């Protein structure tokens, strides 16, 4: 399968939501802080389920947060 690079707005959205920490976001969506850090560094592409949970946390849709680079 061809590799697809995905950009995301997680870091910006965290700061817009009362400077939510990576750990707080991780606790809300049920993953580890390392995974959130990897997502922000664009070194991990989440599953659709995790992407939807992150989008729900920020009150956005998945395509508002994750875009193809």
């Amino acid at each position, binding site marked *: 399968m061809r*590799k697809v690079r995905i950009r995301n707005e997680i870091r910006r959205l965290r700061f817009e939501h009362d400077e939510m920490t990576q750990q707080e976001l991780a606790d809300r969506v049920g993953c580890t802080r390392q995974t959130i850090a990897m997502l922000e560094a664009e*070194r*991990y592409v989440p599953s659709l389920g995790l992407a939807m949970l992150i989008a729900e946390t920020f009150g956005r849709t998945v395509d508002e947060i994750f875009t193809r680079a």
Partner: protein
Amino acid sequence: MNVYVVIAILAAVLFVVGAARFLAPAFRREPDEALADLPPTPLQRRARWVLALGLVWCGALVWILMRTDPVTMGEDQGARLLFTTVLIAGAVGYGALILFMQLGRRGEVAVDERDQQILARASRIQGGLTMLCLAIWSVALTEVYWEEGAIPVAFPYIIFWSTFAVYLVSHSAGILLGYAMWRGDAEG
């Protein structure tokens, strides 16, 4: 040098080259400052402890085998008892460590989807290293005892337990390697 030893050496060279190619990306990649101070995940923390215990355990077993001649081990009840005691102590300690670390993690996300990808890769590494251990035993014993036509009775026992030790230790090593080798795509 017979043809089988040459084949074994070639296989070992191929394995080293393959492992070097597999590990190379981890050393080529530039460090990312945003990821430098991250705390280890619960799985990573547990893998470190289990690997440390496993290496001490393997070290103790190797130390006993180096002090005892495996050929006469079947007759040396003292050495056999010591070997078995260390084996059981290691296996019990291993189980206790996993249980203790699980109990200490209530409320924390133990394994997330990225960890599961790393675990899947660790299982492949575990399988490969276990097979390698068996291959080394097979080639070495066949070559050493070819003329005798049989191996000393203690060896099947040692082969099983050494393979079991490699099986346990390589899983933790595979997990830690998985984190170190994370390349940054959906498949890691």
